[in-house]
């Protein structure tokens, strides 16, 4: 599968010269299977660019939302394929105990926040609430579980026909409540089973280790904890993701350098850069 990072920023789109290299668009990752299956992981502002690359010959697109915070859905209304009547669009998102996924999405995709209502979109939309066990989407097998982040939030594990695994945990705080992380086995760690042995792990790394103590419970990880989680999960390649809006490109370089020097992870690490593509 080919995995392209269309938006790497967390919380708020952050355009400008200081963030031009790692990118200012919020979370969106495009996944293209060998058979042409198209998955969109989250619908942050990065989805707009991805939508422009999807050929009109594509008949189905699956959008996998980890949660419904604005930085993960704000681009949805600007995803051009939604305006194609011949396109089947499946939107997968976390279940809530009281309000359906459709109702929660419509809070954004309806006036006054957005001029077009979800029901007015010309494409053929089907909504699916997750977690719902393992599902087959084209050549992929996709599983999800709830993870540690405020509000219903899932992570995804995507396995292709060759057995390659991509794990996507863009907003994740596995260290919450742990005095020393990681202190527990993988089975007792949020997101652990999703990430176990993954070929590529895209994981939250919003804060520096120094910033994290002031943000405990916000649902995000430090670079250091992202590296520790990757080690615990024995992933092959970690992509630290969901950069804090206040971090410039220079800051991210420095924070990554410091965390790598301290942690010395055994897996490969490539900080998420908007536009980067990984083939696994």
């Amino acid at each position, binding site marked *: 599968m080919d995995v392209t990072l269309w938006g790497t920023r967390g919380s708020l789109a952050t355009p400008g010269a200081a963030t031009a290299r790692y990118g200012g668009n919020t979370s969106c990752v495009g996944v293209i299977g060998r058979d042409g299956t198209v998955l969109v992981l989250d619908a942050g502002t990065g989805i707009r660019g991805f939508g422009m690359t999807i050929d009109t010959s594509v008949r189905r697109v699956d959008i996998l939302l980890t949660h419904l915070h604005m930085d993960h859905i704000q681009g949805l209304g600007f995803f051009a394929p939604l305006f194609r009547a011949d396109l089947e669009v499946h939107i997968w998102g976390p279940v809530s105990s009281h309000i359906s996924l459709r109702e929660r999405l419509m809070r954004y995709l309806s006036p006054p926040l957005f001029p077009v209502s979800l029901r007015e979109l010309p494409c053929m939309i089907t909504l699916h609430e997750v977690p719902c066990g393992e599902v087959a989407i084209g050549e992929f097998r996709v599983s999800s579980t709830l993870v540690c982040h405020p509000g219903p939030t899932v992570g995804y594990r995507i396995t292709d026909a060759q057995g390659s695994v991509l794990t996507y945990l863009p907003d994740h705080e596995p260290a919450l409540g742990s005095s020393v992380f990681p202190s527990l086995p993988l*089975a007792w760690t949020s997101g652990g089973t999703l990430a176990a042995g993954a070929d590529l792990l895209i994981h939250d790394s919003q804060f520096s280790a120094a910033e994290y103590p002031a943000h405990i419970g916000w649902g995000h990880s430090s670079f250091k904890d992202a590296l520790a989680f990757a080690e615990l999960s024995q992933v092959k390649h970690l992509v630290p993701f969901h950069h804090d809006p206040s971090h410039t490109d220079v800051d991210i370089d420095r924070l990554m350098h410091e965390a790598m020097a301290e942690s010395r992870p055994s897996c490969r690490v490539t900080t998420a850069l908007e536009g980067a593509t990984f083939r696994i």
Partner: protein
Amino acid sequence: MTSAKSIQIILARQLANCVATPMLLVDDQNALIYYNEPAEAIFNQRFDETGEMPAAEWTSRFTAVDDDRNPIPPNDRPMGRVLAGGTPVSQSMWMRVSGGDWRHLHVTAFPLVGEKGQLFGAMSIFWAI
């Protein structure tokens, strides 16, 4: 190797780790999957030593009687009642582990229910009377 835990169970354990109240956590089959450090005094053993235990094993370690000294079988104790009925239970009882002293405790147990109504297990807290 323990099986993968749901986020509800993981967070319940994290909570138990952060409080001074004895807490005990079971899965939906009443297997004991965690008890915190304050609860180790009740068990008379550290969790690191016992690890997870099936229902029959951990419930047999305790003798429990009500305030009138009538024996309380495992299924009638708070955790068993919570898992069977799906509602919180609170009761006082006398408990002891084999060879230990009797402790007069008030036990409150409640179910851990997911977004779709699925029962993940139960948690109980112990107060010395």
